[in-house]
């Protein structure tokens, strides 16, 4: 089997500092290469070189034996390289069909041939089991559907090398299965794929071969069977990592409740939701995409209205919007840190201080004490090990995903919450940072804070939570506790409803 893409001694310097060094690697048609490495290991730089975004400083690339030096993203696309990014490159104001065909509309007499467009799209969507109207604006789709649109785009271009960058982070279990069987099918059709993920179990599931990057160099490569998860972790971080889910004292079942939700309903969104989170307890909220988990969180945080029911925090009934809830001791790490969590162009310090500004203000004028803010930010940086060079100047945008997420967490820690709601707290975060985030959550719980954790990763919930509540169709369909033991089939059945359980 001759290689589709070969990298020979590839290297890239940023300001004289090598980000990728002496990389030699090849991918054959019909092969899935799992590419793993911590954030900053050089994966993005490598992908940007393959994708024509940046030119390599040293070495060369071959495409079917011919020198391959894409000058632009368009060059790479023309050659047959497609990216499925973590942050999808879709246009919310355009339809599904338009997004798929964005760089090659079928034309008739110079105009877009809408009928041909619909035909082409429907065929692709059928291949992906995506049952939607091609005219539907992408802005109205959920994350999993959007990703399928992105894959349809790659299929349409007859991509020969598809690079998946953290593809499962926003997918539900069923959608992940669908994605994996799709990858299998593509493999059978002879498509080469690079699969980048922090979820190592997924890598084991889909990849034929594994390549591990550390500090810009290839530190391990071979068939997936030679790389059980512990070895992957070892190669990636260069040391053994203790259990990702650090052990934690289980909260006593008689601890006083922090959050009490009774019969909470919002027509069309959630129905008769009741839930309790005790002091020091981590409660998971599992469910499919669109089960109403994030919607429940938004209602709890006062962002959306509820029609009936009661929410109490520390015994006090809650009213008003986020401001009142924060004052009452609530914090909310949203699922989408770019849109709702961070001011991307503002400094780390300003982001950290935002939810607790009142604490730093003094005097009748409400002057912010900058030294106090600086000190608190610095303490938080050390506490959470946020990797940032200059807290006061460096924009959050320039941090890695894991560090960005730590900034969001730090923001809420500064406001000293009694209850913290975490919505997909480890999305797009690498293994090392994940473990750190879990440790932070555990410490918080040990200090008596209640945590409500929403996640689509069952492993994460099982590893972290004292109890897991499952939602479906806006209702809570069941609750299991660690004491009673978690069974995957059981939890998934609750999430899918009876017919899936059968």
């Amino acid at each position, binding site marked *: 089997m001759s290689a589709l893409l070969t990298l020979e001694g590839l290297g890239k310097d940023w300001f004289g*500092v090598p980000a990728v060094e002496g990389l030699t690697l090849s991918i054959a048609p019909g092969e899935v290469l799992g590419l793993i490495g911590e954030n900053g290991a050089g994966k993005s730089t490598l992908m940007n070189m393959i994708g024509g975004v940046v030119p390599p400083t040293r070495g060369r690339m071959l495409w079917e034996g011919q020198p391959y030096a894409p000058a632009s993203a368009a060059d790479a696309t023309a050659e047959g390289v497609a990216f499925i990014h973590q942050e999808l490159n879709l246009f919310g104001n355009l339809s599904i069909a338009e997004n798929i065909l964005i760089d090659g509309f079928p034309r008739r007499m110079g105009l877009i041939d809408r009928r041909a467009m619909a035909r082409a799209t429907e065929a692709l969507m059928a291949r992906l089991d995506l049952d939607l109207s091609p005219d539907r604006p992408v802005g109205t789709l959920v994350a999993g559907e959007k990703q399928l649109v992105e894959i349809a785009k790659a299929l349409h271009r007859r991509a020969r090398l598809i690079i998946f960058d953290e593809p499962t982070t926003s997918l539900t279990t069923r959608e992940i299965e669908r994605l994996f069987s799709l990858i299998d099918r593509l493999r059978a059709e002879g498509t080469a794929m690079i699969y980048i993920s922090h979820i190592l179990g997924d890598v084991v599931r889909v990849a034929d071969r594994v390549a591990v990057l550390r500090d810009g160099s290839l530190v391990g490569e071979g068939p997936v069977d030679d790389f059980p998860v512990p070895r992957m972790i070892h190669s990636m971080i260069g040391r053994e990592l203790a259990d990702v889910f650090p052990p934690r004292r289980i909260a006593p079942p008689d601890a006083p409740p922090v959050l009490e939700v009774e019969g909470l309903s919002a027509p069309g969104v959630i129905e008769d939701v009741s839930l309790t989170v005790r002091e020091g307890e981590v409660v998971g909220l599992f469910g499919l995409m669109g089960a109403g988990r994030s919607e429940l969180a938004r209602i709890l945080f006062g962002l959306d209205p509820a029609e009936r029911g009661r929410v109490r925090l520390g015994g006090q009934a809650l009213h008003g919007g986020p401001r009142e809830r924060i004052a009452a001791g609530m914090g909310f790490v949203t699922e989408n840190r770019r849109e709702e969590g961070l*001011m991307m162009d503002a400094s780390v310090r300003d982001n950290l201080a*935002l939810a607790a500004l009142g604490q730093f203000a003094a005097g009748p004028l409400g002057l912010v004490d*900058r030294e106090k803010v600086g000190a608190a930010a610095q303490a938080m940086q050390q506490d959470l090990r946020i990797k940032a060079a200059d807290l006061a100047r460096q924009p959050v945008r*320039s941090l890695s995903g894991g560090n960005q997420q730590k900034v969001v967490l730090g923001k809420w820690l500064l406001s000293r919450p009694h209850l913290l709601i975490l919505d997909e707290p480890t999305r797009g975060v690498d293994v090392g940072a994940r473990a750190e985030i879990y440790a932070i959550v555990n410490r918080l719980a040990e200090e008596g804070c209640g945590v409500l954790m929403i996640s689509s990763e069952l492993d994460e919930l099982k590893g972290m939570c004292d109890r897991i509540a499952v939602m479906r169709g806006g209702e809570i369909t069941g609750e299991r506790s660690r004491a009673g033991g978690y069974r995957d089939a059981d939890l998934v059945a609750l999430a899918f409803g009876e017919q899936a359980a059968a």
Partner: protein
Amino acid sequence: MTAIDAPAPVPARQRRGFLARLLGSEYFVLWLTVGYFLVLLPFLPTLGTPANLVNLLSNMWPLLVVAIGQTFVMAVAGIDLSQGAVMALTSTLAAALLATGADPAVLAKAPIWGVLLSERGGLLDGRGGVGLALGLGLAVLAAVAVGLMNGIAVARFRMPPFMVTLVAMMIAGAFAIWLTQSENIRNLPEQFIALGKGDIVSVYFGARTESQLPRREVYPLVTYPAIVAIIVAVLAHWLLERTVFGRQVIAVGANRRAAEISGVPVVRVLILAFALSALFAAIGGLLYAARLEAGRPTLGSGTFLLDVIGATVIGGTSLFGGKARVIWTVFGVAFFVLLSNSLNLMNLSSFHVDMVKGAVILGAALLDVARTRLTRQALP
């Protein structure tokens, strides 16, 4: 590029060149202004004469006050097109309340005649300092009401700031003209006029030989508008940089949703930003009215607004929110005032002025672009 594993920023190199440091500086527009001044000085010696410097400063103060108001609105990703009309409304109302007398032949047809204003003067005329303060206060209050309405429309009803303030401009401006039926209101009380040009410290350059100083060579250095503008600027700077409210203003502009989730009272912050804009416009309007010695329903019309917005944006404040500093606006205003002053001194034919003005704005923008590129290189 995704931010996922962008290399950590290279620490600023120690030996950065002078040029790079200059361009990267927060004070870039100040250096630009100073540079422009120094380059022109040999060709336009008048530019540096005390009389001209005094003019420069006196032109700067009221514009600065108005532009600072605009800065707050831009910080929340808004724009306030109604500032000019608010100035007109304030100056007209203040003049109507405070005038020491009015000519019925001119103003008898105005709706305010007999209500706020009559032959004997405005409602609050002749009540001393209290009356003056009350009159100015009421006029400013009317302006703030316009600002509050702008803010409520934007914050509560999600109406685009551009449209809201455009409509406010139409209505407030037309309302001011309707109030006086197009007439200006003269006969302002002495203290009001002093607000526009009264000097506190003046200087005389030259030997003291004659008993009477030649008036032409006495230069007002510290004036009431200067004091008002400096106080406003310092307070606004504090408000934006140091207070919780100021940081919330920036947060709302940077990411409204994140701000809301972080407990920022977004609606209140937006409304206050627009109210502040109107407040500062009103103060600027009073300064302009005082130095023109009349309440003018057409104050601040025409291209005035472009000067305000242009000066604010040149200073570095972003039209898209989240990036604003009062000090930048000070520099931007200084640049714009120097620009139009220098154009006045160049003795250009009136047929050329617009072209030169456009070219200088372009030049400044180009330098700014060069600077951004140079500083960007420091961060990947």
